[in-house]
């Protein structure tokens, strides 16, 4: 979700220490697991919001993702996508669509749940997940060069 092992380790520590500080505020109106889960997700989101300017810039760039090239190359096969390749590709996604993608496709949350968590509309959640998948496809199919091609094409249009 935060695309960095070091950051994830720092956030995990913060979640534990925050739970320590705030456990007296736990009212029992949800399960303890839900309370902690929400705290962990919120920590990630706070961290990501801190990088909001960068996120807005990169999200803008993928808003203009063009149509795919009409080339019928061999389709991706899920079992042939290596974990490492996929995780590295996910790391390269812009924060906004990576968050929605991880919550939906990796964690299995529904769009309406993601919308509540992120404070966005359900439609935005859907479009962010779609953009993330398109971006991942470009990365996984094109190696390192595909996204650069896409970005330079957008720069050319701008």
């Amino acid at each position: 979700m935060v695309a960095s092992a070091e950051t994830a380790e720092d956030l995990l520590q913060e979640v534990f220490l925050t739970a320590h500080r705030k456990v007296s505020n736990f009212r029992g109106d949800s399960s303890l697991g839900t309370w902690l889960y929400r705290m962990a997700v919120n920590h990630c989101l706070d961290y990501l919001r801190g990088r909001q300017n960068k996120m807005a810039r990169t999200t803008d760039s993928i808003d203009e993702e063009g149509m795919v090239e009409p080339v019928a190359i061999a389709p991706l096969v899920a079992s042939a996508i290596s974990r490492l390749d996929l995780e590295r590709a996910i790391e390269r996604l812009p924060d906004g669509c990576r968050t929605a993608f991880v919550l939906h496709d990796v964690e299995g949350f529904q769009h309406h749940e993601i919308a509540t968590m992120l404070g966005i509309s359900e439609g935005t959640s859907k479009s962010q997940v779609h953009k993330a998948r398109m971006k991942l496809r470009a990365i996984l199919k094109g190696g390192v060069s595909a996204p650069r091609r896409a970005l330079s094409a957008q720069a050319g249009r701008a």
Partner: protein
Amino acid sequence: MNCSTCQPLLSAYVDDAMRADQRAAVDDHLRACAACRVLAQDLASIRLAAGSLEPLIPPAHVWHRIAAAAETHPRASGFRAWWFGWRPLAAVAMTAVLAAGLWRVGTLLQPAGDSASAPRVAAVIPAGESDPEAHYTLAIARLEEVTSADQDLLDQETAGAINAGLTVIDEAIAESRAALRSEPQSESAQESLFAALRRKVAVLQETLGLINEMRKGNQDGAARILSEINR
């Protein structure tokens, strides 16, 4: 429907989250368009591969660091009591944090046995204990006996997260023992072994607390039984 109207719908299509009439229109286009057909297959494959990613388990040194940070936290004096009473919570937190996806990405984690960077955690060896390793080993054996008998009380996901965490710790223990065999006088290898053993004791205690909470739904009871085992 043409490619430019079809493509934005393909995620909803592979998620099976569209109206029947829309789906039929997409199906019609896909039958006629190889490029969009491949795109739909690609998106479905990405979704499937992402959903199949295994949770990443934090390496042992992260737990050591958190334990050390907790000890030096402003409320450190209360931490032991808190941690002790809330051991079941710690196990839930481990699962929750893992499930929250903190560890799904950015996977180039350091090896589990990277004990050189692991801060010291507070010693839990009783005063006068002459053979700490035997002490830990005995505690672990006792805890494993109790927890393995009742582990089926835990849900599969929690048990999986805990067992994965224990596997990481076991690897750290094995690496430390190997290092000690080649360098018997190495203090860092010795400390690394003790740290990993302490971590295993702590995780097993957390597991036991959780099992007990599951059984009784009683936080106080969990803490009391834990204190008896700890004695």
